[in-house]
C-alpha cells in the first residue's frame, strides 16, 4: 500500500506532500489517530509535561471519526510546521499508542519512521467520498467526521486526580481558597489572628435553574506565605477548598493534579477569568474577579464610641533638656563597604616596602600615601584590597574613615558626621581606638607612592651617535668600447624547426 520515499524525490502521488529541507516527506498538517479518548489525553499530558501545548493549540483540532463500519476513533490534527516538530509529536504519539500521518487536505500518508527515514508515498489513492483517508503500511481507511471536540471543553471535563500525600510536596507561596459563606467569616478572623497575609472577596454565581432560591455564593481568599499547618487545616475543613495556582488565571485544588499540564496550555484560558479546578471535577470560573480587600479590614472589631477613653493633651516642660553623647566605635556584623584606605603602623614599614616591590604597575599607580610618625596612611579609591597590610578602613562619609568591621555609634548620618568633625578642612579623618579619637591627615601629606617611597635614580651619561645613513649614489653611464659592427658575436635567434 505504501512505498518508501527516495532521496531527492520531488513527485509524490499523495497530494499536498513534499520533501522539506531535510528531505523528509511532509504535508501542511500532521494527524495522530488514537483508538480512544484516554489515549488522546495521555498524549496531551505527555506532550504538555515535556513541552508546551501552546505551540500546537493554534491549529489544533480534535475530531471524532467514524468509519463506514461505524467504528469510532479519535483524531488530533495540528499544523506540521517542520519535520522537527513532527518527530517530537510522533515520538510521544507512539508512546501513547497513536499512529502518525501527514498530508494536506484529505489524504494523509504515514509519517516517516525508522524503516523509512524520508517518509512514505502511496501506491494508489483511494477514490472514495470521505472526509479523510489515512494510508498506513498495514491498512488504508476512509473516515467521516462525526463531531469536533474542542480542547478547552475536553480539559474542563477532565477530573483532576489526587496526588499521593506521601510525596511531600510543599504548597506554593501563593494559594487561593474558596469557602462556603457560613465558614468564611470564621476563616477571616482566623487568618487575621494568625497574621496571615491574605485578601478576601465574595464571589457570586447566578442560580443554575429556576428551582434554586438564590445563586451560589462563596468566599474567596488570596493567601500569601500561609504556614503549612494552616493550609492543611483549611484543606481538611468541609466547605473549604484550597487551590494552587498554575498560571495567572488557572488553579487546581491542593493535593490534586489535572491530567493535562494546564500551565503548558495557558493560551486556552482567558487572563481576565480565574479558573479553579476542584478535585471533584467542578470548575469555578470567576469573570470578572470580585473586588478583594485585606482580611484585617474585614475583621469585626467591637467599638463602643461612648466608652472610649478621653484624649489627653501633653504639655511640654519649661526646663531645657540637654544630652551629651560621645561617638564610639562598636563592632558590626554588616558587610564591609568602601574599603578604600588602610593604616599601617610605622613598625611595619619594612613589610610595606617589600610589598611595594611586588605590586603591579596598575595597583601602584592608584595608591596615595601619607607618612606620619606613628603610621602610614594609604588610600586607593578603587579599593585597597591590592595592599593587604595594616588595618583596613571603610569610608563612612567623604574623607572620613573608620576601621572596617566597626561602626560609629550612635549611628549618625554621614552629613551629620561631616558637621561633627570640625576643623578638618580638606584633610582625611581616621577614627581609631575605643574612644573613637579622630586623626586628621592633611590632603597635602598624601602623594603618589612613586613620589613618596622611591629614591631618586641618577643616570650615568654615555656617548652615542646615530648610524651613518648613506643614500645610494647616482649611477653614471659609461658607454662600452665602440664597435664597428655592434651586432657581431651576439647570440643568434634559434631558428624554428
Amino acid at each position: 500500500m505504501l512505498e518508501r520515499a527516495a532521496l531527492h524525490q520531488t513527485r509524490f502521488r499523495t497530494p499536498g506532500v513534499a520533501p522539506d529541507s531535510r528531505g523528509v516527506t511532509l504535508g501542511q498538517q500532521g494527524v495522530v489517530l488514537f483508538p480512544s479518548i484516554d489515549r488522546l489525553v495521555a498524549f496531551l499530558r505527555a506532550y504538555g509535561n515535556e513541552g508546551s501545548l501552546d505551540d500546537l493549540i493554534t491549529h489544533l483540532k480534535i475530531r471524532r471519526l467514524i468509519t463506514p463500519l461505524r467504528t469510532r476513533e479519535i483524531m488530533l490534527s495540528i499544523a506540521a510546521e517542520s519535520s522537527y516538530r513532527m518527530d517530537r509529536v510522533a515520538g510521544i504519539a507512539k508512546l501513547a499508542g497513536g499512529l502518525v500521518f501527514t498530508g494536506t487536505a484529505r489524504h494523509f500518508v504515514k509519517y516517516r519512521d525508522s524503516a523509512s527515514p524520508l517518509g512514505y508515498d502511496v501506491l494508489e489513492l483511494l477514490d472514495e467520498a470521505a472526509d479523510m483517508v489515512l494510508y498506513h503500511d498495514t491498512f488504508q481507511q476512509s473516515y467521516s467526521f462525526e463531531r469536533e471536540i474542542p480542547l478547552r471543553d475536553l480539559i474542563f471535563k477532565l477530573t483532576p486526580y489526587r496526588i499521593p500525600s506521601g510525596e511531600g510536596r510543599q504548597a506554593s507561596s501563593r494559594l487561593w481558597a474558596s469557602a462556603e459563606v457560613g465558614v468564611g467569616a470564621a476563616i477571616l478572623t482566623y487568618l487575621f489572628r494568625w497574621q496571615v497575609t491574605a485578601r478576601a472577596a465574595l464571589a457570586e454565581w447566578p442560580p443554575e435553574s429556576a428551582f434554586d432560591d438564590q445563586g451560589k455564593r462563596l468566599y474567596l481568599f488570596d493567601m500569601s506565605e500561609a504556614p503549612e499547618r494552616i493550609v492543611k487545616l483549611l484543606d481538611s475543613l468541609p466547605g473549604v477548598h484550597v487551590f494552587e495556582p498554575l498560571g495567572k488565571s488557572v488553579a487546581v485544588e491542593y493535593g490534586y493534579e489535572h491530567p493535562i499540564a494546564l500551565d503548558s496550555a495557558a493560551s486556552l484560558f482567558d487572563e481576565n477569568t480565574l479558573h479553579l479546578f476542584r478535585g471533584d471535577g467542578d470548575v469555578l470560573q470567576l469573570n470578572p474577579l470580585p473586588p478583594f480587600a485585606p482580611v484585617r479590614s474585614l475583621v469585626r472589631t467591637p467599638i463602643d464610641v461612648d466608652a472610649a477613653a478621653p484624649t489627653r493633651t501633653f504639655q511640654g516642660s519649661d526646663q531645657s533638656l540637654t544630652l551629651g553623647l560621645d561617638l564610639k566605635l562598636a563592632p558590626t556584623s554588616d558587610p564591609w563597604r568602601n574599603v578604600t584606605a588602610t593604616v599601617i603602623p610605622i613598625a611595619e614599614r619594612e613589610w610595606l616596602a617589600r610589598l611595594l616591590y611586588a605590586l603591579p604597575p596598575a595597583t601602584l599607580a592608584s595608591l596615595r600615601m601619607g607618612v606620619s610618625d606613628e603610621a602610614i596612611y594609604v588610600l586607593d579609591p578603587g579599593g585597597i584590597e591590592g595592599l593587604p597590610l595594616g588595618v583596613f578602613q571603610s569610608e563612612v562619609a567623604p574623607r572620613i574613615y573608620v576601621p572596617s568591621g566597626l561602626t560609629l555609634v550612635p549611628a549618625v548620618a554621614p552629613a551629620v558626621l561631616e558637621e561633627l568633625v570640625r576643623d578638618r578642612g580638606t584633610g582625611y579623618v581616621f577614627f581609631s581606638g575605643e574612644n573613637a579619637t579622630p586623626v586628621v591627615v592633611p590632603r597635602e601629606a598624601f602623594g603618589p607612592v612613586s613620589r613618596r617611597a622611591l629614591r631618586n635614580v641618577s643616570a650615568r651619561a654615555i656617548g652615542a651617535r646615530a648610524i651613518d645613513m648613506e643614500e645610494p649614489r647616482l649611477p653614471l653611464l659609461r658607454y662600452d668600447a665602440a664597435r664597428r659592427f655592434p651586432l657581431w658575436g651576439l647570440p643568434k635567434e634559434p631558428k624554428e624547426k
Partner: protein
Amino acid sequence: MARQLQELFDEFAKDFVAPLLKGGETKAVRVLPAHVLGTFGHGAFSDTEVEQQIREGLSDAVADLASSSVMPFPEPGAMAVVMAGHNLIALTDPKLDRRFARGSLPKVLGWANELIDSIEAPTTRGEALTRHALLSRLLDLTREDTILRSWAYTYRFHGRAPTVKPVPPFDFLDKKTTRQTMRRLLRAHFDANVELYEPIAKATNRLVTRSPITLLLEHKDVPDLRFGEAVVSVLSDSGLRQGIIQSIVRTGTQHVAAPFGHALRHFAAMDPPGEYILPVVAFLAELQILEVMDDRAGHRPKDVPAIGDEELFSAVLPALFETEGAAKELIQLEKTDYERVRARAAQRKAEAGDDAVEMARSIAERAVAAARV
C-alpha cells in the same frame, strides 16, 4: 650557446644592473637581442656578490615608497624593462652613428620595442616595485659629457672618459663637463642619431607605461597619461598608493593637475565598473588632502579659474564633500585638518566651476555605489 648566453647575462648583471642600482659607474654593455629574454628572465647569477648588490639595490631604491618582502628578480617583466632600457640607452651613443654601425640602430630599436611589447602588467606589489626600482634608476642614469677645446681642435667625449691629454706646455683652452640624465636624454634631441629622436622618445614613454608606479611618479613627462588596469591595480593597494602620493607631494605638485585631470576624464569616459573608480578617486582625493596638510606643497590655487583637465582635477576634492557613502571615509580627519581641507575644497570649487564638480561627483558616486555592493 648556453655558455655564451650565461656570459652575456653575467656581464649584463655585473657591469650594468648592479652598478645601476648601487650607484657608481654603470657600463652599457653589448646590446641585447629580444630573444634572449627567455633565458635572462629566468637566469641565475654566477656571482653571489653581484646578486647581493642587486637585491640590496632594489630594496634601497624603493625604501621610501613601500615595503615588500619579495622583490622578484630576475623575472621576465622586470628583466624586459631593464633590457629594453639598456638598449634604448645604447642607442644614445653617438659612436653608433657611423658607417657600418649605423645600420644596426633600427634593429636595436626593434629589439627594444619587442621587449617593451612583451612586458605584461605586474601582478604583485613586489613585481610593481621591482620594475619601478629598475626604471627609476634607468631614468636617473646620468651621462657625463666632456668638451675639451684646444687651439687646434675641439674634442667631445659623450659618456666616455676623455682619452686626450694636453701636450705640455700647452693646456686645453676650455674644458666643459655637463651631465644629463636619461630622463631628459631619451626624450630630447641629443647629439646623434637624428632620425631616431622620435622613435626613441616614443619607446621610452611606452616603457614608462609598463611600470605603473613610474608612470604615476613621472606624470609630468608622460604625454597622454591614462589610468589603465595596471595603474588601477597599483592604486588599489593602499600601501603603494600612500607611498606614491607622499612621493609626489614630496617632489612637488606643480604639474599634477593637468595630467591627472586628463587621465580622469578619459578614465570616466570608458565607463569602468564602480570598483575600479574608487581607487582612482581615492588617489586623487588623498593627493589633494595631503597637499593641504603639507605646507611644502607647491600646488597653489590659481587666480584665474583652471580649465579643462586641471578643472576636473580640482573638482575631485569638492565633489567628495558632496558625495555620501564610502567617499566620506576619505575625508575622515581630525577637526582642524578637516576644516582646512574643506576650505581648500571650497576654493577649488570656485576655481573648477559647478560643471566640473558635477562631473567629478558623478564619478565618485559610481565608485561609492560599487563599494556599497
